[in-house]
């Protein structure tokens, strides 16, 4: 093992590979921060350039793109309320309110530190626990995945704001949107309305661009773009310090572990990890009322979880040959192109390469930290641009972003339609968060549920007879009902004290 680690250190510290990591993280940061340009797209575009490189260098470059792209989704989420990646959706809930309060730099700083820590913890997990965690992945079949994603949906109740029924209606619309497209099991089109474009379903990024960015632009125009009330005292903070996240260390560690566990399970990903971590952080927080209104802890939870997923996703990919998400699938393709077959034997036959991949995650996060420190000061200046200039810039970015998803104006139309829906939701005080959660998790919930029922010949008992699924369902019940029980218990206790 140590021979391989020393070999990997030698490879990663070569100046060519360090340059590749720097270039990769820069590319990832640009793609991740622009709505519509996804990490998957960035990794896909970079992949052909790795064909002529040695396998180690190619993987190093892809790692840089992947880590920075995952982190950079938080930048646009915080500054313009449009998550660059689906896994940054929870970051927008607290990041944008902080920007409106003039605390964007603090939010960006916490997001950067939490992302780096989450990524580093995930990389360490990859180095030390890969074979052990791979076994966890094998224990997750469709029933367990259904139980996990269903557990992820429980957060809807806590992000619904004052009206639970409005939150549920918004979530149900998210689920309904997720059903559009070809049915995952029997292949029949659903709600395509004879439009070929809708066979592929409604893309998440188009919906995010619509309900977050375009709706906000409409909202600002409706208010005649009244100059944003950015508290000047809050904007003074212009330095990044580790002390900013000291109060959130425990949240970051906990969320990173959630990210690793979720990341190991194929077919899940950063979104569900960040929702679960966010919900757990809110539950455990001393200031839960700040969540959704500008909580640094919420940003720390979401960002450390989605970056905690990055290296963990590669655990089943490298050890079992099962890609955890689309980016991992591209990594798998890259390995195959270089003549390497993922699986348990890869650690034996290509131990040096394996540890190179693991160490490159550590290096990518370190490089990302310094690049982030440099870039954030420039990103933060975006909020000081007058609305009359900033809004058209955001609008064009969003329209181009939507166009580039499928090189088609259909995506732009979808974004505009959801812009109108999002604006109506703002005006009628419907929360957007439940809709986003349901949209992201809806497809996974339905697919895993139906796969489970196929496995059990239609018997729902499969969900309670498998220990891990039962554990998640028990947690769902606990997390859903414990606040009510606690409230009742406190009232009962208070009455007892009075008497």
């Amino acid at each position, binding site marked *: 093992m140590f021979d391989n680690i020393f070999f990997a250190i030698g490879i990663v510290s070569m100046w060519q590979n360090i340059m590749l990591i720097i270039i990769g993280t820069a590319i990832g940061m640009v793609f991740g921060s622009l709505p519509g*340009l996804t990490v998957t797209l960035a990794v896909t*575009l970079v992949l052909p350039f790795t064909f002529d490189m040695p396998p180690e260098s190619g993987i190093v470059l892809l790692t840089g793109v992947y880590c920075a792209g995952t982190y950079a989704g938080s930048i646009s989420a915080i500054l313009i309320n449009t998550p660059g990646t689906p896994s940054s959706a929870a970051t927008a809930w607290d990041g944008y309110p902080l920007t409106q309060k003039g605390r964007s730099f603090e939010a960006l700083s916490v997001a950067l530190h939490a992302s780096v820590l989450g990524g580093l913890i995930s990389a360490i997990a990859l180095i030390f626990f890969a074979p052990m965690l791979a076994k966890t992945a094998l224990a997750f079949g469709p029933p367990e995945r259904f139980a996990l994603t269903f557990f992820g949906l429980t957060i809807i109740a806590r992000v619904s704001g004052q*009206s639970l*029924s*409005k939150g*549920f*209606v918004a979530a*149900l*619309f998210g*689920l*309904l949107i997720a*059903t559009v497209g070809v*049915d995952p*099991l*029997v292949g*029949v*089109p*659903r*709600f*395509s*309305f004879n439009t070929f474009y809708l066979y592929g379903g409604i893309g998440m990024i188009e919906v995010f661009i619509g309900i977050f960015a*375009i709706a906000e*632009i*409409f909202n*600002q*125009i*409706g*208010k*005649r*773009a009244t100059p944003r009330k950015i508290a000047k005292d809050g904007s003074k903070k212009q330095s990044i310090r580790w002390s900013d996240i000291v109060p959130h260390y425990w949240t970051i560690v906990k969320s990173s572990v959630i990210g690793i566990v979720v990341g190991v399970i194929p077919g899940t990903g950063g979104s569900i990890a960040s929702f679960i971590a966010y919900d757990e952080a809110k539950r455990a927080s001393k200031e839960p009322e700040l969540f959704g209104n500008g909580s640094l802890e919420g940003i720390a939870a979401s960002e450390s979880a989605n970056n905690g997923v990055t290296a963990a996703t590669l655990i089943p990919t490298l050890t079992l040959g099962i890609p955890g998400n689309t980016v991992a699938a591209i990594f798998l393709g890259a390995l195959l192109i270089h003549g390497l077959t993922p699986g348990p034997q890869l650690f034996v036959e290509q131990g040096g390469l394996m540890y190179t991949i693991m160490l490159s995650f550590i290096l990518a996060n370190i490089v990302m930290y310094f690049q982030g420190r440099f870039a954030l000061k420039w990103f933060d200046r975006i909020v000081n641009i*007058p*609305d*009359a*200039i900033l*809004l*058209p*810039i955001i*609008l*064009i970015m969003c*329209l*181009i972003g939507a*166009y*580039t998803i499928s*090189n088609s*104006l259909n995506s*732009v*139309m979808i974004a*505009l339609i959801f*812009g*109108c829906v999002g*604006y*109506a939701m703002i005006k009628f005080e*419907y929360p957007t968060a439940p809709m986003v959660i349901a949209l992201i998790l809806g497809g996974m919930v339905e697919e895993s*549920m*139906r*796969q489970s*029922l*196929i496995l059990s*010949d*239609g018997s729902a008992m499969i969900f309670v007879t498998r220990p891990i699924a039962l554990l998640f369902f028990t947690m769902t019940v606990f997390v859903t009902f414990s606040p009510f029980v606690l409230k009742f218990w406190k009232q009962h206790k208070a009455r007892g004290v009075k008497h």
Partner: protein
Amino acid sequence: MSSLSSGLKDSIPSIVTLLVGAFFMASIPSQIADFGTDGLSGVSARTMPYIIAGAIMVFSLFSIVAAVWAHIQSTPADTTDDPPPKTRYGLVFLAFIAIASWIILLPFIGYNIATILLITSIMLIIGRCTWVQIVLVSLALSFPVNSLLGVVLKVYLPSGSLFD
């Protein structure tokens, strides 16, 4: 009676979601082919949409009833909140038209001209900007962005069928 009507007025969004839910419920037979319950799972491609559309209708109805009931129960003193700030829906509609026109015109006049027109109209709608700013921003977001996307990201935006 006035409580009932004001309750219904407040329920307009819920009535809309109820109608949308009903529309999707009614469109399921025509929009999702029925291949039965895929043999094994006991759940067909229509099951989830039926459950979701039904739940939307139930929750919307619940919201309507709750709003009407709240108005019937409320006293006039309960509804003395400050009026919300006035929204200029006309401007929002104009912005919508401008974006929709960009989408329609893009294939014909190309990205550069369509964007100049869109940015100019959006900045005029927002107001509080000079003509110099309008010219500079619209030019900066058209030609340079188009070239940058093509050269760096290999993303080619429509150049316009009228100029081909």
